[in-house]
C-alpha cells in the first residue's frame, strides 16, 4: 500500500496539512504571465521558488518555461531586494530582450516588505526599462490564497498596468478564461470566433505552452495576448470572466478603471455551463448562435443517452481547483453521476456555497470542503469510509487510485504522468464529449477487466 498509514477515522486537524490540493500563488502568476506575448515572468525572491515553479509548469506542459529570478541570498533578505530587482530588470532587458517583464513576489520578498511597485518605478526612473518596453507586477505571497489566486493577481496586474479606456470602442468582448489549459484557451477563442464575436482573450497560453518543435527554440513563442490587445481591453464592450476565483478580480478592476461592464460565468465545462457561455456571447455581441453549435451539442447529448447506463448513480470523488470543480460537479450531476466528495485547497466561501447549492438542487448527500486542511488525506479518509466508483483529480490522485483500486480520471493541475491534457480540450460541447468519453473508457475497461470469462462481452 502506497498510503498505508491512511485510515478511515477522520480526526480534526488544525496545524497539519497532508497531501495538499493546492499550491502557492507565484506559480499561478508565472503561468498567467506566460500568456502574454513576448513576456518574461520574473520571480522576486530566492532561486528555489523560481526553479520549483518552472519545474512544475514544465512537467505539466512538457514545454520550455522561461522565467527570471532575483536570486536572493541572506544579504538581500536582510537589506531588502531592491538592488537585486533593479539589477535583474537591467540584465533581463539586455540579455533576453522581452517586450514585457511580469514580476511577482514570493513569501520571502513579501515578508521583508519589498514594495514591487515602488522598485519598478525606480527602475523606470533609472532608465533600466528601455523605450517601449513594460514591467508589470503582482503581489503573490505564498501564505495567502493558492496558485489560483496568484493567477488571478497577475491577470489583474495586466489590467492595472496596461488597459486604458481611450474613449473609442473597439467593438470587442474581453474573455478572461481563468487557469485552464492552452487548448482550452484556444477552444474559448474558437467558440467566440465561430459565433462571430471579436474578442480579446487574456491571458492566452495557446501557442506558447503547446508550441511546435521546428528545430529552433523561440524564447518568446508566437502565441499570447499582445500588449496592444491588453491596452485595448479597456475599450471593449463587455467582459466575460470565467471562474470567480481566477478571473473576477481583473474584470472588476477593468470595470472600475475603464468602465467595461462584466459578468462572471463558470468556466464552460459540460453542457449547462457551455450553454450559459454561448448565450452570454450571443447576448452581449448581439449575434445569433450558428447552427453547428446545435449539432455539436446534440452529438454530446446523443452519446450521453446512448451510454447513460454506465454513468447512472456512479459515486465520484473529485479534487482540484474551484473554478473547474464547480462546473464539473454540475456536469457530473447532469450525467446522473453522484459527485459525493468534493475537495479544493483554495480558500474562499463561494466554493462551498456553490457546491452545496448543487448538492441540494440535485438531491445529493455529499461532502465538500475547501481551505485549511482540505487536503487529499481527508478526501482519502472519506473514500475509505464509504467508497466511490471514480476518482477525478490531478496526478497525485494516482496513489489513492492504486491503493483503493479506483478508476482514475486525470483532470486539473498538475498532471505529470500523462499527455493530452494540454492538447485536447475539456471545454465546450467538444470538451464535454471528451470528458464523457474518458469516463466511459474507464468504466468500460473496469467492466472488461473484472468480468468473469463467461460474462466477458464484445459489444458495450
Amino acid at each position, binding site marked *: 500500500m*502506497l*498510503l498505508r*498509514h491512511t485510515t478511515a477515522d477522520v480526526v480534526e*486537524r*488544525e*496545524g*497539519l*496539512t497532508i*497531501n*495538499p490540493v*493546492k*499550491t*502557492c500563488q507565484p506559480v499561478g502568476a508565472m503561468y498567467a504571465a506566460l500568456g502574454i506575448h513576448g513576456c518574461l515572468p*520574473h520571480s522576486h525572491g*530566492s*532561486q*528555489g*521558488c523560481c*526553479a*520549483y515553479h*518552472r*519545474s*512544475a509548469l*514544465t*512537467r505539466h506542459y512538457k514545454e*520550455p518555461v*522561461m522565467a*527570471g*529570478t*532575483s*536570486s*536572493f*541570498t*541572506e*544579504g*538581500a*533578505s536582510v537589506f531588502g531586494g531592491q538592488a537585486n530587482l533593479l*539589477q*535583474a*530588470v537591467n*540584465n533581463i532587458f*539586455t*540579455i*533576453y530582450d522581452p517586450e514585457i517583464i511580469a514580476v511577482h513576489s514570493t*513569501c*520571502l520578498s513579501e*515578508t521583508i516588505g519589498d514594495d514591487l511597485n515602488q522598485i519598478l518605478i525606480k527602475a523606470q526612473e533609472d532608465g533600466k526599462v528601455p523605450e517601449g518596453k513594460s514591467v508589470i507586477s503582482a503581489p503573490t*505571497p*505564498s*501564505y495567502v490564497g*493558492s496558485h489560483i489566486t496568484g493567477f488571478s493577481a497577475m491577470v489583474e496586474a495586466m489590467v492595472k498596468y496596461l488597459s486604458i479606456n481611450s474613449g473609442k470602442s473597439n467593438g470587442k468582448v474581453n474573455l478572461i478564461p481563468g487557469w485552464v489549459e492552452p487548448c482550452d484557451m484556444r477552444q474559448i477563442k474558437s467558440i467566440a470566433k465561430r459565433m462571430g464575436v471579436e474578442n480579446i482573450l487574456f491571458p492566452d497560453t495557446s501557442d506558447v505552452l503547446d508550441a511546435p*518543435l*521546428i*528545430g*529552433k*527554440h523561440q524564447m518568446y513563442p508566437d502565441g499570447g495576448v499582445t500588449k496592444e490587445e491588453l491596452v485595448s481591453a479597456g475599450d471593449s464592450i463587455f467582459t466575460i470572466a470565467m471562474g470567480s476565483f481566477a478571473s473576477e478580480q481583473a474584470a472588476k478592476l477593468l470595470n472600475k478603471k475603464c468602465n467595461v461592464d462584466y459578468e462572471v460565468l463558470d468556466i464552460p465545462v459540460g453542457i449547462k455551463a457551455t450553454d450559459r457561455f454561448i448565450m452570454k456571447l450571443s447576448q452581449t455581441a448581439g449575434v445569433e448562435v450558428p447552427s453547428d453549435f446545435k449539432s455539436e451539442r446534440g452529438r454530446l447529448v446523443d452519446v450521453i443517452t446512448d451510454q447513460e447506463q454506465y454513468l447512472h448513480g456512479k459515486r465520484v470523488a473529485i479534487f482540484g481547483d474551484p473554478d473547474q470543480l464547480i462546473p464539473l460537479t454540475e456536469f457530473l450531476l447532469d450525467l446522473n453521476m453522484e459527485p459525493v466528495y468534493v475537495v479544493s*485547497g483554495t480558500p474562499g466561501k463561494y466554493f462551498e456555497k456553490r457546491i452545496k447549492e448543487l448538492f441540494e438542487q440535485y438531491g445529493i448527500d455529499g461532502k465538500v470542503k475547501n481551505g*485549511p486542511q482540505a487536503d487529499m488525506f481527508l478526501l482519502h479518509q472519506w473514500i475509505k469510509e464509504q467508497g466511490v466508483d471514480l476518482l477525478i483529480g490531478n496526478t*497525485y490522485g494516482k496513489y489513492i487510485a492504486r491503493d483503493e483500486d479506483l478508476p482514475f480520471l486525470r483532470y486539473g493541475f498538475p498532471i*505529470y504522468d500523462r499527455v493530452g491534457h494540454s492538447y485536447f480540450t475539456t471545454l465546450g460541447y467538444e470538451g464535454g464529449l471528451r470528458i464523457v468519453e474518458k469516463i466511459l473508457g474507464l468504466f468500460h475497461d473496469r467492466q472488461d477487466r473484472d468480468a468473469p470469462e463467461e460474462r466477458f462481452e464484445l459489444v458495450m
Partner: protein
Amino acid sequence: MGEHTIPAPELIKEEILAKYPTKVARKRKKSMVTNDGNKDKALEIQANVRTVPGIITQRGCTYAGCKGVVLGPTRDIINLTHGPIGCGFYSWLTRRNQTKPAEGSEENFMNYCFSTDMQDQNIVFGGEKKLRKAVQEAYDLFHPKAIGIFSTCPVGLIGDDVHAVAREMTAELGDCNVFGFSCEGYKGVSQSAGHHIANNQLFKHVIGTQDKEPEGKFKVNILGEYNIGGDAFELERIFEKAGLTLVSTFSGNSHYNSFANSHFADLNVVMCHRSINYVAEMMETKYGIPWMKVNFIGAESTAKSLRKIAEYFDDKELIQRVEEVIKEETIQIEETVAKLRPNTEGKTAMLFVGGSRAHHYQELFNELGMKTLAAGYEFGHRDDYEGREIIPDIKVDADSRNIEEIKVEKSDEEFRDYTKSDKLEWSEYGGMMRDMESGSLVIDDISHYETEKLIEAYKPDIFCAGIKEKYVVQKSGVPLKQLHSYDYGGPYAGFVGAINFYKDIERMVTTRVWDLVEAPWEKSTQVEAQYAAG
C-alpha cells in the same frame, strides 16, 4: 551530426560574454574555463558564488538541497515542511526517490507531503504554535520514530525557532526524535548549502544514536546515493553478490535505524562528493571510519570501485569474489557495448547538472566512445572541479559563513583505529577537470543564454541537464537526457545501470523523429522550382 568542426572554446566564450552587461561579463568570465588537460593540477574556476539576479539559472535553493535531496529519500522519517504550502508541494514525490519497505507494517511516509501550510496570520504572529500542533498531529496519526522539521524562507525571517520546538516536542512525545533544519531557501547560493545543513543535523541528531551492531564481515556505508530510478537497488544487488554488508545508504532506500547504526561501518564510500563529503569527514573524525571516493556510474568505474573496497578489507576471499562478480557482469556489458557502440562512437555530449553527476556520467559516455565537449555543475564547489587539495585555498565568503559549521570531536569510546593501506587513496578526490580533455569547456552555474549559445555553436548529439532545460534544448533539435531524474528511466548505476544507460543513449542519438523536424516543403528548393516551372 557529429561531423562538424568544433569552434574554439575561447571564441564562444568571448561571444557569450559580449552580450552581457560589463559587470556580469566580468563575473561570468571567471566561471568559464577552457580546460588545459593538466592531470596534476586543474585550472582555477570560480564556483559556488551567487547567481546574478535576472540570469535564468538552473539552480534551486537550500531547502531543496536539504529536504529534497538529502532527507527526501528516507522512508520512515516524517519530513514536515514548516512554511507556506508551495515548498512542501513542489518537493512532494518529484525527485523519484524510490524505496522498498518490507511488506506489511513497515513504515513508509514517502508518498505523503506534510506541511504547516502557514497563513498570513502565522507570518504576523509567528508560526511556532501551529508547528507544535502539526508535530503533535503528525505523531498522533502516524507514530513515527522521527520527525524532521524544515524551515522555509519566511520562517527564518519571522524568527520561528524550529530547533526549540523540536527539543520541546522530543521531550514531550518521549519516543519520537524531533529535529529541525534551518534550511531557509535564501541561505547560501544554491542547493549545496542545504546539503551541508542536512548533513550537520543528521550527524547531530541521528547518526550513531543507536547501538545495534549489524552483522557482517565487511561493513560499508554508501554516502551520496539517493536511489533515483532505483540506482541504490542495483548497488544493493552488487554488494550482496560480492559479500559486502551495506549498513546504510545516505539516503537512497534508507530508513532511520540504518542511519542511527551507521557508525558501525568499517568504511564509508562516497558517491556524490558535493552533497555529503561533510558526513564522511565528520564520521572519520568522531569514529575513525575512513572514507574513499568511489564512482558506481559506468561499468569500469564500478569495477574499479569494487576493487578499491576489496583492497581496503584486504581479504583474499572478498577480493576473489569481487573479481568473480566483475567477470560475470562484464560479459553482458561487453556484448551490449559491442552491439551499440557503432551507433554512438564519435558522437558528442555536454553535461550541465548537479554537483558530481556531470563528472560521473562522462565515464558512461566514454564507454560508448562519445566525447564530452563541455561540462559543468549546477551547485558544485571548486573542489568538485579542481580536487580536494584546494579546499584550504577556497575563500570563505559571506554566503558560506552563515551556514553552521559544527565542531566534531573524537569519541573516545566509539573511535576505532582502522588500518589504511598506503596504496589506496584516502579522503581524496581529484575533481572533474583532471578527467576531461584539453580544450573542453568547463562552465559553472551555466545560464540559459549560455546554454543556447553552446548548442548553437557545438550542435552536440546529446545534452544532459534537468527538466527546466529539457524542452528548451529539444526545441532546438538536440535530444536532452535528464540526469537528475533520468527521464523516468534507470537505474544507471552499477552494471545493470550501465547497460540501461548505453541503450537509452543509443536510442536517443538514433531516434528517427529528429529527422522529421523539418517539413518536406522546407527541406529543399525542389518543390518551389517545380511550381515555378509549372
